[in-house]
């Protein structure tokens, strides 16, 4: 039968392979960032959790200040501060169970410390005596990732592997707004959704990728909206509201644990300090903007809630400050000791067994060091 003969019976149809897809509506983020503090939702928040968050925020702020001071004293090569972003850093760490995994970026040493890693080990990379200073398996914290967004597919693979093994493990991966432009962000979210991997992606939208504002980074309605294209829910949260960040992340972790697949969380926050101590933020933003954000400070927001509800008195606040000072003093004292360096370590871990070529080079360096150690004129 020719097409001409068929014509009378022909009814237009969609392409044969087309099927109605998932309804995108439930995946869409809320119109406004979700908030708890200062809203009706605050009444439902667990007072113990709020007090714990507060203590960690204060400690986190002090940690950031101490680390920045250490750069000025030459004890750290560089420090990318998370001052102003402590709510995200702390909530990301607290929301996980011990068996879960955290995948931090280079700005997330506070989350690493809040997860239980020794601050000196967390800062090894930035001190420069080695790269990763902690054993990733000890606290289930992946190495701090400097190449942007490259840690996201790692989180997906790890979560996928855990699920294949039948283990109840969730991976939480952290990335910044700039990192969402990287190809690895796209590939990680796509793999996670296709595999329904138990992963939570936390984007800290702190306004800037070094100097470049978000408007030059994306034309998306929000970063959370990007989730919809992958078929996973996107959540938008006030990143300076520690109770809200904790709740949204806890929901996402619960969902992942229950087999519901990945979630993308965009936390709206602000990088109060420059990109690092080596950066000059006055070249790309004004003081007025920074001041506006200081009025929306994560510690102040939580403190107002706690004191307003009688959950924090001056004595308790003082005790929290004292704990933070103790942590800072300990960190300062230990970072002021010179790091123990063994140049032979350079060759020890490139491979399980050094190659013959590395063994030769190790002997070369050993001989050079021995010659250096010889007193002048003994040859």
């Amino acid at each position, binding site marked *: 039968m020719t097409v001409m003969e068929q014509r009378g019976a022909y009814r237009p149809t969609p392409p044969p392979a087309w099927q109605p897809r998932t309804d995108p509506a439930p995946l869409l983020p809320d119109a406004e960032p979700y908030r708890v503090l200062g809203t009706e939702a605050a009444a439902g928040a667990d007072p113990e959790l709020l007090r714990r968050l507060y203590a960690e925020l204060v400690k986190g702020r002090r940690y950031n200040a101490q680390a920045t001071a250490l750069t000025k004293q030459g004890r750290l090569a560089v420090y990318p501060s998370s001052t102003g972003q402590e709510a995200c850093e702390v909530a990301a760490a607290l929301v996980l169970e011990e068996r879960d995994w955290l995948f931090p970026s280079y700005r997330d040493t506070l989350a690493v410390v809040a997860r239980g890693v020794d601050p000196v080990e967390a800062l090894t990379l930035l001190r420069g005596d080695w790269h990763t200073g902690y054993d990733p398996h000890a606290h289930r914290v*992946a190495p701090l990732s400097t190449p942007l967004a490259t840690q996201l*597919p790692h989180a997906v693979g790890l979560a996928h592997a855990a699920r294949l093994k039948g283990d109840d493990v969730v991976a939480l991966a952290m990335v910044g707004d700039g990192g969402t432009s990287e190809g690895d962000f796209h590939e990680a979210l796509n793999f996670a959704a296709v595999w329904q991997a138990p992963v939570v992606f936390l984007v800290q939208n702190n306004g800037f990728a070094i100097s470049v504002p978000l408007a030059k980074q994306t034309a998306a309605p929000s970063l959370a909206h990007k989730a919809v294209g992958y078929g996973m829910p996107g959540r938008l949260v006030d990143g300076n509201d520690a109770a809200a960040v904790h709740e949204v992340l806890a929901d996402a972790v619960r969902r992942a644990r229950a087999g519901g697949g990945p979630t993308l969380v965009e936390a709206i926050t602000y990088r109060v300090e420059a990109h690092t101590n080596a950066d000059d933020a006055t070249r790309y933003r004004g003081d007025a903007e920074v001041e506006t954000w200081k009025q929306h400070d994560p510690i102040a927001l939580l403190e107002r809630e706690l004191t307003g509800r009688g959950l924090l008195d001056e004595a308790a606040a003082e005790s929290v400050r004292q704990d933070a000072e103790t942590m800072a003093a300990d960190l300062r004292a230990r970072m002021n000791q010179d790091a123990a360096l063994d140049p032979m370590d350079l060759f020890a871990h490139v491979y399980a067994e050094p190659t013959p070529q590395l063994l030769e080079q190790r002997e070369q360096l050993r001989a050079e060091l021995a010659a250096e150690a010889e007193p002048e004129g003994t040859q």
Partner: protein
Amino acid sequence: MTTVAVKPATMAQALTRAMRDAMAADPSVHVMGEDVGTLGGVFRITDGLAKEFGEDRCTDTPLAEAGILGTAVGMAMYGLRPVVEMQFDAFAYPAFEQLLSHVAKTRNRTRGKMPLPITIRVPYGGGIGGVEHHSDSSEAYYMATPGLHVVTPATVADAYGLLRASIASDDPVVFLEPKRLYWSKDAWNPEEPTAVEPIGRAVVRRSGRSATLITYGPSVPVCMEAAEAAQAEGWDLEVVDLRSLVPFDDETVCASVRRTGRAVVVHESGGFGGPGGEIAARVSERCFHHLEAPVLRVAGFDLPYPPPMLERHHLPGVDRILDAVGRLQWEAES
């Protein structure tokens, strides 16, 4: 080639068998890549694995090489032993950031606390009439990256043995498969397959006294042919099959060159910045007083891989190899 002959097998069959045996022996071995499941891979190297071990063990991934290798890193962090297939040499490039910044560095970065036992299989090289982006020799990129092993078989038995050893290795291995040898046949006894260990040992494929051809992968059979043809010219050539570019077997290579006093490095990869420069330098540094002539290179030209109708002019062939051998200053001897 001296293996006990039971029946001829192809390199493709040996590679498939290596993965099958590794998966059967160790439940942590997972194969992943584009089209590796239902289809069995575009070269059919993973044929039957998904059927035998299930799609969780042999997984068709989304089409994204950085995502494939990046998720393999995460799987290895959790104790799995991923075997990743990159569909073609030139399609592996999107994964370079994961390879260079994580796969190669994570053991060192973590002082050995987080080894990444990942095998990355890459069909490479030309000679199959492939159109653009299907015939690259990418080994120099991998060789230049500390933390990676770079392995390439030239025989059926080695294909099995080196792939088993690579999968068993606790270090990441870039396993370069000479795609034009996939269907080459060799006498091989698949009833007694064995791993070739340790990774990093070259082998003398043909003994000779006049000069050494140092080569690997797809150029090994070409050099063997050249060595046969050279007999007519009165040259008795030795052929060293490197098998592993990293680690590099200085010992076997230099022992051969010290015996013969002359050497030609042969590979498809471009000569400028290619493996041959490194090999020639190593030989010159170590065997200078044994050399009767400069170490020569027969390599692909320094150009983007040619279109298939012109590739025969680019690839090192028997005549070009014999020309190089002829330039090894024989007149100085007489």
